[in-house]
């Protein structure tokens, strides 16, 4: 099962990056992994450089004032009001205005164009992301209904049109290493470009305060080779794998009868709830609860036992399940790959 091994490896990476480890950097504006993000980072470094010159200059002037404290003014300028007014006009108006016009043109015409939302007709792939309190619903329109949550996959080297909407309050879709953010506003359809040549996994997070668990509304974008992406997408588009053994059948029974299905969908079953994330292929995901915990059987079990412990305020209630029921449910869900 080479596939399994690969997954285990990914899981280890994910656990490191998302939950326990200190890998850092995978949410950083300053470590861009795409052309648009690189353009913006470069723009920032230039602005920082200019700012450093201004701050440095001002500090030198103030230091000069400090060194000359309690001494009368610089003789040349001391009495000449015209000269001092001239200094104010040149350094306070002319120079900053010139520099700013330059930055304005570069930023808002050149860089803005390179990072702008794409024309949907020119992009080969559209991903619809819907913000919910507090998870991300991810749909791949035109792929016979692939739906997942919190973990986007996109093919490397492909311009992807992300359509961002919200189901409840305002959220904001932000993957710092890939591009600028875009708000998700009820009644509006916003778009943003995702595009990267670098295979890898990049973290995103909701950037607009959206209520109690705003802090635990994270997601990831996996950029993978196109072939692997196509395989992943085909897998995600399928209905759930029918239960193969008694344990799994029991688990599906629990899912359908104990209340899970009133909020969650598992395609291929009668469970069609639309409040929580689609669980058709939940076993293929690396994390749970919008990247709050790793997707391992013990973590999933403790999540089902007490969803309010780790992420208080989320909409999932604790169901009255016996230990055996919960074990069967966990085994079933983890088997949904």
């Amino acid at each position, binding site marked *: 099962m080479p596939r399994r091994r690969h997954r285990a490896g990914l899981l280890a990476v994910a656990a490191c990056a998302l*939950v326990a480890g200190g890998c850092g950097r995978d949410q950083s504006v300053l470590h861009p992994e795409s052309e648009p993000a690189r353009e913006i980072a470069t723009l920032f470094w230039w602005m920082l450089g200019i700012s450093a010159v201004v701050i440095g200059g001002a500090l030198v002037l103030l230091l000069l004032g400090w060194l000359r*404290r309690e001494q009368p003014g610089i003789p040349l*300028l001391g009495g000449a009001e015209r000269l*001092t007014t001239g200094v104010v006009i040149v350094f306070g108006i002319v120079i900053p205005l010139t520099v700013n016009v330059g930055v304005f043109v570069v930023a808002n015409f050149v860089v803005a164009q390179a990072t702008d939302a794409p024309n949907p007709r020119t992009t080969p792939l559209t991903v619809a992301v819907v913000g919910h309190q507090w998870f991300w619903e991810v749909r791949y329109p035109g792929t016979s209904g692939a739906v997942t949550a919190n973990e986007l996959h996109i093919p490397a080297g492909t311009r992807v049109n992300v359509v961002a909407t919200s189901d409840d309050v305002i959220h904001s879709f*932000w993957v710092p290493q890939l591009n600028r953010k875009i708000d998700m506003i009820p009644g509006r359809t916003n778009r943003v470009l995702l595009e990267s040549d670098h295979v890898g996994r990049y973290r995103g*997070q909701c950037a607009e*305060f959206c*209520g109690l668990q705003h*802090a635990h509304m994270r997601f990831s974008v996996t950029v993978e080779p196109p072939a692997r992406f196509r395989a992943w997408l085909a897998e995600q588009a399928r209905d759930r794998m029918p239960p193969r053994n008694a344990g799994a059948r029991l688990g599906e029974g629990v899912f359908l009868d104990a209340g899970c299905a009133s909020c969650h969908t598992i395609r291929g079953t009668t469970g069609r709830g639309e409040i929580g994330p689609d669980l058709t292929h939940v076993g293929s995901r690396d994390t749970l609860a919008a990247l709050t915990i790793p997707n391992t059987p013990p973590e999933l079990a403790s999540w089902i036992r007490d969803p309010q412990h780790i992420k*208080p305020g989320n909409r999932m209630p604790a169901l009255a399940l016996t230990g055996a029921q919960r074990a069967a449910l966990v085994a079933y869900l983890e088997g949904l790959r």
Partner: protein
Amino acid sequence: MTALDEPTLARLRTERLERVWAERSGLLGWLTTTNHKRIGLMFFFTALAFFLAGGVEALLIRTQLIGPNEHVLSPQAYNEAFTLHGVTMIFLFVVPISIGAFGNYLLPLMIGARDLAFPRLNAFSYWVYLAAGLFVYTGLAIGQAPDTGWFSYVPLASKQYSPGAGVDFYALGLIFTGVSSTATAINLIVTTFKLRAPGMSLNRMPLFCYAFLAVSFALLFALPPLTVATMLLELDRRLGFEFYDVTGGGLPLLWQHLFWIFGHPEVYIIILPAFGIATSIIPTFTRRRMVAFPLVAVAEILVAFIGFGVWVHHMFAVGLPTITTIYFAAASLVIVIPSGIQLFAWITTILTGTPIFKTPLLWILGFIVLFIVGGLSGIMFAAIPFDQQATDSYFVVAHFHYVIFGAAVFPILGGIYYWFPKVTGRMYHERWGQASFWLTFAGTMVTFFPMHVAGLEGMPRRVYTYASGAGWSGLNLTETLGAYLLAAGLLTMTVNLVASAFRGALAPDDPWHGDTLEWATTSPPPAYNFAVIPTVTSAYPLWDDADRVADRRRLARGEMVLAGGHEQPASTTLDAELDEILEMPSESPWPLFAALALAGVFVMLLTGHVAIALGFGAVAVALLACWHVWEPEGAA
């Protein structure tokens, strides 16, 4: 009559003024006062109490974020803490302390007046402010604190997603404080235009007064959109209207537009008084007239004006058309012009003067550094693609704390030191004053600078916790330690000033060789401010020795003493030629009662008793009538 010599005559006239302007003593005196200095002090101490509350909230926030996955505050408590922190610092601390305390206390003194133009309206402003502040904090006391952030975006703030009363406390509380700010703004505008001492034409008015005039106008025009926004929100929440509800054809973005049409001018409302304080302190401690005085005056007014045309730069990530965002980015860059003028005017004045780095000027020095940092990070937001990376991250938190704490509060703190001798009649301790500055400055840098980095490393604002693997732990630890250092600096200042108020050396009238009229009178000033209404011939009246000598002669001769009652000269608006002598109203309990009735309106609206609220409204109007009709005996 020839038996009396000049000093005796002067003394007799001063005693007469003392009698005329004396107010009731004790608690009742404070409750019924209309004296701008007493009201200013009440604003000051009330605002400080809210500053303390906002500061405690800030320390709680920072302590929760000291490390990943901390549990100092629950998510709910954290959200309440940052919401109240923002609301308190902006609406209940910075604006009231600058407009209500500094403007109230100092503006009449600087223009040579005996009070504000509408003393009872002034008292009313204060009581409304106090009631509104208590109103907002009542929410916290009964476990219904607002928790949707200081700009409370809908639909999060709608009834559906925020069913509790917290948002109602917020929305009604803001309307309520708006009444106070509007009244003070009108008062300051009329005072500045009409009560200036003879000779103080507009071009001789201190830059401090220009700043406060600009702020007052900005407040007057900025508050209505906020009132409209919050009223529509309440209509949505209480009566099922759908202004912001997309399912009923409303628009969530309408709230954002209305809020920021208020919110951006508010930024300049917060910072302009600080500019005014800086332009008061710098000439005094550099022994030099302000460089480019007319340019700075124009710049102060321009800042207030341009501030109304840039609000969409708070909304660059909401998906507006490019043409809109580019226009607002360009407009935002124009702010650089007035800011650049003032910045270089301050720096050039320091460089070409004889700078004496006593505590007040140190705070201004710190202010200049922090303002440059905050200004530059602000300009970066006019680069739209960068804005869309940095907005709603800790980078923006860093930016606006540099601007609001660094650029607005530092001059306020420097101003407290600067005018401490005038207000208390005692000197503060210079060494400890300087120590408090360096501690606070270092604390500010250590707290807020790493936030730039945290934001660029991807940390969104308003998260109650973060994962240990996110790479933000070291930065957050540093910020929290910085916050404790900052608090230590402010504590040092408090101890210094409290001790000095009781045991400091007695202050002379003009300890700094200041340039404006407040230094002409005694420390602390008498109830009537000036025994003789001063005559002004330049923008630096205290440096015109001959004029001040002439004032003292007038006292003996009885010219412009105006001791026949609460007399105050009114001048022409532009040239400040003496126009008429006004009889100012005296102390009165009606403003307090009117404010209480208004509080009744808001409490009843909050509890949903609209009919009773209307009743209280009628009572408030009736009390306004009493206020105008019933004069205490003895008044003309």
